[in-house]
């Protein structure tokens, strides 16, 4: 009897086999002989998570809109499936065609969080593709990286042939077109293609730069190997989001996914400028879509999917200048179609009775607010422009409206933080409980619960806090303990993120190219799904870093000098260093900065395109 080497023969023995079968309604099938470029979008996490990613949904649609390109999807197999694949020598394949990844022209990895790096590289291994770019041959697929992580892609730069910095809608097609034309006119070699691609705005070819270091270990300089290679890579921005392509069909998963619903991207960017938030800086400037466009898209999506929920998403949905028009427009048909609207967590100062009555998720769901810091001083330092009064006002409305559970998000280890700020978190939670008991008995819902959830601050590239040192593990743990001691009320639940995870996250987010051998070692040792608590192993990470000669303190507790060359200085994300420095000094004076809608602070993001009505 011959051996059957494909996935279906092992499906009977793995957990949740439905995530490996593909065959979904609305998936796109083309004939491989009729396309010029086969692209595989690889998501370095499970099917359930990857299928929910908006970026992948958009780019799948964009790439497939080109008749010469066929874009398919690939997800990471869960551990039991990975073991079977290794045992029976089954190669990682794409969902649509079932073809091994080596048959593709390009693989594009969506890098959403640093802890997915090992998973991405394991996927390459499972496909039989060398993880180091330099080890690949002429006919290996071109390996592309994109997503929020690539604002500092240095730790993984040498694993990728090409990095897409910024929004991918236009640039990915340009890359495919260049590839197709070079193949057609016979000028294609891997080297020539990458060199030519480096001229496309938003494309970074790591192999075309040489990095040198100073004696103290800091970076001396990035040097392009050739004159025609840009010294800095400008992020790519879609100028007019209202006209940008947006899918009107979605691939319909058979199994339940994380965001199993219609997701409407209302705008990109953020007017706020919280000083710890990378997304708020790198997606600038804010670009809104019109209520008409959004409503039309929503209707199309409803008809083509049959979903009964539409979720409006953006970094801070209540800042959308036409939120009322949009919700009214949507509600004019959604109720009748038995479709519900949902909003992600709202800013504290925007929570209103009107929204609660209008939006079912606000009406029925739990309440989540993010004051981020426990005292007004520290909230001013991080430029989170909300006050205690705002919070009290919001919870008062919520309790009167029948809500009884509130979740509050905070961060530990913020710059200038003292124990007083930590105690402030407990105080704030107590005051929320107090607001509940202030209401007359008849007017409040039964059984209040307040959850305080605290994560650890990671100083991220392209934020005003990018130079800050991360709190040491000891200090973070001590703060967590102190807070635990301050929370005495049994109505307040307290949970916190592992400081050890945040430390490794910081190393990966702030690292340079010298981290790559450690990551390669981790992959060799079988690390995968580091973003999943059950697979993250701090001691093993410290071990591989140590063996590769990397001192984690150098990237975390040391902090970066203001005049130091930063690993991500090779990227121009629009927002200027001067602006970040200005914001940094204002932080130390606990001075806030108004939102873009109130006053333009001249961040510089408008120079790359996508300028909005507020930008100077």
């Amino acid at each position, binding site marked *: 009897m011959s051996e059957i080497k494909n996935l279906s023969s092992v499906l009977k023995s793995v957990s949740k086999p439905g995530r490996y079968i593909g*065959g979904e309604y609305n998936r796109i099938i083309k004939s491989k002989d009729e396309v010029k470029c086969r692209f595989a979008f690889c998501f370095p996490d499970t099917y359930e998570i990857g299928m929910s990613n908006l970026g992948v949904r958009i780019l799948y649609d964009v790439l497939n809109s080109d008749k010469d390109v066929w874009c398919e999807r690939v997800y990471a197999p869960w551990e039991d499936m990975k073991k079977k694949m290794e045992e029976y020598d089954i190669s990682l394949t794409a969902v649509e065609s079932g073809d091994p990844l080596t048959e593709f022209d390009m693989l594009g990895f969506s890098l959403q969080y640093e802890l997915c790096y090992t998973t991405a590289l394991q996927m390459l291994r499972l496909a039989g593709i060398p993880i180091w770019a330099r080890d690949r041959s002429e006919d290996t697929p071109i390996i592309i990286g994109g997503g929020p992580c690539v604002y500092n892609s240095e730790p993984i730069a040498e694993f990728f042939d090409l990095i897409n910095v910024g929004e991918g809608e236009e640039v990915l097609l340009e890359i495919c077109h260049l590839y197709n034309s070079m193949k057609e006119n016979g000028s294609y070699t891997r080297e020539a293609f990458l060199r030519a691609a480096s001229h496309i705005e938003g494309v970074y070819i790591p192999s075309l730069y040489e990095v040198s270091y100073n004696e103290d270990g800091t970076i001396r300089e990035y040097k392009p190997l050739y004159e025609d290679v840009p010294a800095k890579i400008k992020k790519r921005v879609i100028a007019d989001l209202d006209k940008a392509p947006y899918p009107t069909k979605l691939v319909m998963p058979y*199994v339940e996914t994380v965001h199993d619903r219609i997701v409407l991207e209302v705008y990109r960017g953020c007017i706020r400028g919280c000083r710890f938030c990378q997304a708020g800086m790198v997606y600038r400037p804010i670009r809104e879509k019109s209520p008409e466009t959004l409503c039309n898209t929503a209707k199309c999506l409803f008809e083509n999917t*049959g979903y009964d929920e539409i979720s409006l998403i953006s970094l801070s949905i209540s800042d959308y200048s036409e939120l009322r028009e949009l919700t009214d427009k949507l509600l004019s048909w959604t109720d009748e179609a038995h479709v519900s609207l949902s909003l992600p967590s709202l800013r504290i100062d925007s929570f209103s009775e009107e929204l609660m009555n209008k939006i079912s998720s606000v009406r029925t769901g739990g309440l989540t607010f993010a004051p981020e810091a426990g005292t007004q001083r520290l909230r001013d330092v991080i430029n989170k422009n909300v006050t205690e009064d705002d919070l009290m006002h919001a919870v008062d409305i919520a309790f009167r409206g029948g809500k009884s559970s509130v979740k509050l998000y905070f961060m530990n280890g913020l710059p200038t933080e003292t124990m007083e700020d930590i105690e402030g978190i407990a105080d704030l939670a107590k005051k929320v409980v107090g607001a509940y008991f202030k209401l007359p008995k008849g007017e409040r819902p039964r059984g209040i619960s307040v959850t305080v959830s605290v994560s650890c601050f990671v100083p991220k590239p392209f934020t005003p806090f990018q130079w800050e040192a991360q709190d040491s593990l000891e200090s973070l743990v001590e703060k967590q303990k102190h807070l635990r001691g301050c929370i005495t009320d049994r109505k307040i639940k307290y949970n916190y993120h592992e400081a050890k995870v945040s430390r490794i996250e910081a190393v990966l987010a702030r690292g340079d190219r010298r981290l790559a051998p450690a990551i390669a070692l981790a992959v060799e040792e079988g690390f995968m799904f580091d973003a999943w608590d059950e697979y993250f192993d701090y001691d093993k990470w410290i071990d591989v870093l140590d063996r590769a000669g990397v001192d984690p303190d150098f990237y975390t507790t040391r902090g970066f000098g203001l005049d130091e060359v930063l690993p991500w200085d090779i990227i121009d994300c629009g927002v200027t260093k001067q602006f970040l420095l200005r914001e940094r000094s204002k932080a130390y004076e606990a001075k806030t900065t108004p939102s873009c809608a109130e006053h333009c602070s001249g961040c510089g993001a408008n120079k790359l395109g996508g300028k909005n009505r507020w930008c100077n």
Partner: protein
Amino acid sequence: MVQLTPNHPYVTLRVKFKKVGSLQYISHLDLVRTMHKIIVRAKLPVWYTAGYNPKPKMIFAAPLSIGTESVCEFMDIRLIDDISPELAKARLNENMTDEMQVLDAYYTEGKLTELRWLEYDFIICTDNASDSLADECERALLSDSVTVEKKTKPGEPTVTTNIAPMIKSARATYRDGLIHINAVLSADPSSFLNPEYIIRALRDSVGILKNPRLTEESYSIMRCGAYREDMTDFR
């Protein structure tokens, strides 16, 4: 044909469909969620349940477990308008993929609970397949005592159950190197027999599928018929 009246605001459309190939790996819960969206996309005039979170009303007969294919699944849906069953079938099929298609649709007043027996085809690819093994399988399934270890609730210890009363008939043959079994099993809700137990019983009694090389040994199960108590076709 039922008339729609205020007291009877809906008609019941019975849909017979197949769920084959890789869709055998989709759980019943996921099937229900998928079907809900298919019905909405097909724009059928469905009757929604009342209450806070209205859903189209769908009732399924004898849910399939993961790993079993079927060419005779039944689902009742309530419609507030009696559109032609052919149209309903066509619209549903446009919104399904190849591995799930409606085979028949018609209005009914019958109850899904009239379904009592289900017929299955098993194909077993086992190292020791032979004519005599097929005979052994048939004999084992038709004996008075066919025992399997069953878990009544997760976490609880297994109990040994005799499933012989739940097997109405069984026939086994050896063809092209494979064992083929056709069996009719109970679909009575109080004594429903999951066809996987047939495989398990044969593994324990006659020793099929004992080779640990999973990629070589395999089996498939196809639900292929549905009957009433008196063994007339259920429809």
